[in-house]
């Protein structure tokens, strides 16, 4: 599904914030060039204040660029037609606290012009997907940060977007939910959708992003495919199972002798996330409530009745 057609195209973006008297107070982005193709999962990384969120807000039309050109889905990001094809999860989930998740999704569906049946079908599917079926009629104001984040994710998907912009999507979520989000992102990308995300959890980015760009002081300092950036071409690791300590020592000595280089042998570790998920899966198997939820079918193009928003 991945093509070279650019979904996001940024050329020479500058963004300078000014005070009331128009004096520059901060130069958040300085000459940014970025291209994201269709079906890509693109990670925007960088320390605090590096310009990630500013770049996203310019892409969404919330901020105006000081200089540079931006094309999103082939058009100006401020066009309403462009906005109809974008889903956005902000860094801080700012929802109307007095609404329930159902009312929240109905509201945002209304903004996308979805009709009644489509709204109801998508709301039901998304709430099931984010695991909030039981809390569908409680005010969002009573929710924990993680639950509110799930509602935020659901609203970002209500219009079945072609471009999904996620600002810290796993922030505040438990490991199971994080894993689910990553799984949804992978499946959405496989269905042809483009995802631009930021995260401070580098493991998450490494897991799901095809390409990344690292921003520092408003400029791209590194950009490329994840495996290319992280690869150490001059080092090799071998994984062998079922060896005794004596065999390991024998192999190490032989490799060291033949290559004339020091060889380190260690036992590989699974990630803490994998271990956590294994424990939860074991609990599920023992009769606890199952945690994992499938992605809503309409997002993957499996449900003709709840197609894209007009």
């Amino acid at each position, binding site marked *: 599904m991945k093509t070279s057609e650019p979904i996001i195209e940024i050329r020479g973006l500058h963004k300078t914030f000014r005070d009331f008297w128009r004096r520059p107070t901060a130069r958040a982005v300085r000459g940014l060039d970025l291209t994201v193709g269709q079906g890509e999962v693109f990670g925007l990384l960088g320390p605090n204040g590096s310009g990630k969120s500013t770049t996203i807000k310019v892409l969404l039309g919330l901020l105006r660029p000081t200089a540079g050109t931006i094309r999103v889905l082939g058009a100006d990001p401020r066009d309403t037609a462009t906005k109809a094809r974008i889903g956005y999860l*902000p860094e801080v989930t700012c929802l109307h606290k007095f609404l329930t998740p159902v009312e929240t999704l109905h509201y945002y569906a209304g*903004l996308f012009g979805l009709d009644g049946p489509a709204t109801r079908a998508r709301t039901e599917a998304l709430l099931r997907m984010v695991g909030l079926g039981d809390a569908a009629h409680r005010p969002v104001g009573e929710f924990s940060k993680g639950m509110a984040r799930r509602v935020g994710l659901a609203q970002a998907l209500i219009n079945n977007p072609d471009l999904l912009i996620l600002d810290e999507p796993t922030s505040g979520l438990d490991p199971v939910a994080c894993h689910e989000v990553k799984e949804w992102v992978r499946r959405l990308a496989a269905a042809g959708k483009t995802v631009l995300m930021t995260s401070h959890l580098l493991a998450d980015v490494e897991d799901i992003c095809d390409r990344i760009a690292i921003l520092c002081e408003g400029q791209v300092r590194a950009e490329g495919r994840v495996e290319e950036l992280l690869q150490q071409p001059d080092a090799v690791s071998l994984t062998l199972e079922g060896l005794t300590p004596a065999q390991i020592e024998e192999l190490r000595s032989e490799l060291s002798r033949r290559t004339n280089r020091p060889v380190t042998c260690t036992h590989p570790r699974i990630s803490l996330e994998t271990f956590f998920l294994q424990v939860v899966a074991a609990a599920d198997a023992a009769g606890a409530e199952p945690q994992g939820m499938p992605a809503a079918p309409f997002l993957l193009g499996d449900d003709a009745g709840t197609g894209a928003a007009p």
Partner: protein
Amino acid sequence: MNRAVPAIARLTLREALRSRIVISFGLLLAAVVFGLPALLKGDGTPAGLVRMTLGYTLGTAFGLLLLATLWTGCALISGDITTRTLELTRVKPVSTWRLWLGKWLGLLLLDLLFLAGIYAATGLAVCHQMRQAPAATSHLRTARQKIKPDLPPLERQISEVFKQVGGDTLEAAEQRELRRRLRRELPFQPAALERGQQWSWHFSTGTPPDPRQPLWLRFQFDTDAYTRAIVKAECRLTGTPGGTHVAFDLDDFSTRRFEVPLDAATFGGDTRFTLSMRHTGDESTGPLMLQPRQGLDLLVPRVPLARNMLRAAVVQFSLLALVAALGLSLGALFSLPVAAFCATGIVLATLISLFVAGDPDAFADFEEGEHGPVQQLVTTVAAGTTRTIMRLTAPAVEPAPLQQLVAAELIPLRELRRSLLVNALLLPAGCGLLAAAALRRRELAA
């Protein structure tokens, strides 16, 4: 209509109905509309009690609703910006004017609910009071159309007086000043009817009055309110072309305002009437002072009180629509404290200018007196500012539906249409366009 607008309107209404502040405000309004009629003692007459109930209850409740609408309007968009919920709405395919329109309609729906409640409760209270004394309040059951005597246009009268006083011989600047003064003072300048003299006026009612209900003549003599000059006159109302008439006397020293009921059945289906009045006071009485443009009306019963209340509600609703638009637009331009400050300032300036507008000579003494240059400058600026505010706010504040309701006067349909067009459509549209442009320019989450 685009689905976004109803969605935003529903959200606004839902937000209000689930807010503790709005619920508390609703309880306060309920206390006013149920409590005031129970507390009011009236002026000792059943009709006075009904009038007070209408005036005080609707006036107090509407005043509270007006301020609440203004401040809520200020808080709606500025509050969404502060809580960053507007950020999520702005990234959806919703234009800024639709966003503003949705918020405005939501606030209007809320106002409609409150206004309907206020009028329903007041209507019930008034019905109850009228049932206690049906005969004494029967004249309040029907709203009366106010018909002014057929007089020459004001401009012609100004020209006539201008010629009489030799205005043509003056310098151009003095001519302008004279015309300005005549235009300001002539509508309020009473004519004097000396003892033994007679005046006549003609009235056209358009459609014949209902013969089952009395016709009313209202006189407002311009005698001093404190010295209470005696009014003694013989009057006769004649229908044309039938020529039947009703005669009556005005004879009182305690009031300068008379409302005289006349049997409408006497006149059959007449639509044109002639009123003649002759000063019959003795040598001790002074002239009768009357300004027919302001102080003489033929009142023809037309529609039931309930329909007139509905018209008053529509006029007030139009004003709420304007105030809501003003608040919303200020909220789109500024933060909540600044918007609320500006909104309250505008309301205060309007009230002050209204107060000044009640006295046509408010600045005359200052402007005509001898002052130093600084005092002259200050006076000129103050007069100019007040007159500008008066002109700007005139379309909004000119209708006085409560005064008409209390006086059992019909609120004309043209006033209703004008109020809806200007206050509920044109001025809010202007506010909306301004707010939409400001929101488009405004950077969110900077």
